């Protein structure tokens, strides 16, 4: 059984006010595929992960991770201390 891959796609999409359809068109997949990715029901191929990283202009490890991402509130609290 492969371990789940966590992602920041919903956050990245929300901060850019992107619909699933727009993101899907940009990386050349069906909009439902983005839905499955966001839910964590599907782990992307290396090609798709790289396309998404390229689209958001971020390193792949900023979007996908084998460990759950730290919540933004926690990061903000750390920054404040």
């Amino acid at each position, binding site marked *: 059984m492969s371990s789940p891959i966590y992602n920041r796609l919903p956050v990245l999409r929300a901060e850019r006010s992107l619909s*699933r359809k727009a993101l899907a068109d940009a990386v050349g997949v069906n*909009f439902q*595929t983005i839905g*499955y*990715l966001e*839910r964590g029901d*599907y782990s*992307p*191929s290396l*090609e798709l992960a790289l396309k998404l990283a390229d689209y958001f202009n971020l390193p792949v490890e900023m979007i996908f991770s084998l460990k759950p991402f730290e919540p933004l509130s926690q990061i903000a609290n750390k920054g404040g201390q």
Partner: protein
Amino acid sequence: MSFYMRTANGRTPRRSRTSMRLATGLILAGYPLGALLALNSGLAGEGSVSFALSLAGLAIIAVSVFAFFYIAPSYMQRIIGEQLCELDDLERDLRQKAYAFAYHVLTGLVAAAIFYLAVANDDTRLTLWAPDSYTHWNTIFWGVLLYCFTLPTAYLAWTMPDISDEFAEEELEAEPVRKPGVRWWLWGLIVAGGLAGFILARMIT
């Protein structure tokens, strides 16, 4: 081997996971049941009971065929039957999994059927039923074809998470539309095949 039917307006009709499960279950269970009833109705004698059984069998077969045409234009059937170049990353992955499952089930069924036929033909003391007419083999042929088309879709219907509720209506409406094109080469091939068959039949007789 599978089959996908693009709708006339080019949109993929929405089918809930429950309805897909029901339809595929109906096809996979209904066709063999209907075929058994229709083919063995003669065992009930010559009267109206036999006729009613035969009619019921044909009705169940018809329902399972209609159920197939319900799933044929669905998103799940698209994953199974659409040209590979039209599918994305996830869809190709799902198709591979569904085909692997269908292969295992179908090979298991074929092996069991061959074993059964070997016993039925070899040991006459058991008096097991074995197909012996064109009608029997014709029914089996269409059943195998229906199973080939439906098994991968049934796998998806039982394993794919249902996320259709998460999408807004306008998002679903915005789905790209690809109307079915007229494949002239295919029609040409069918007509040429028919003509060749006709000429060959005339020449042989």
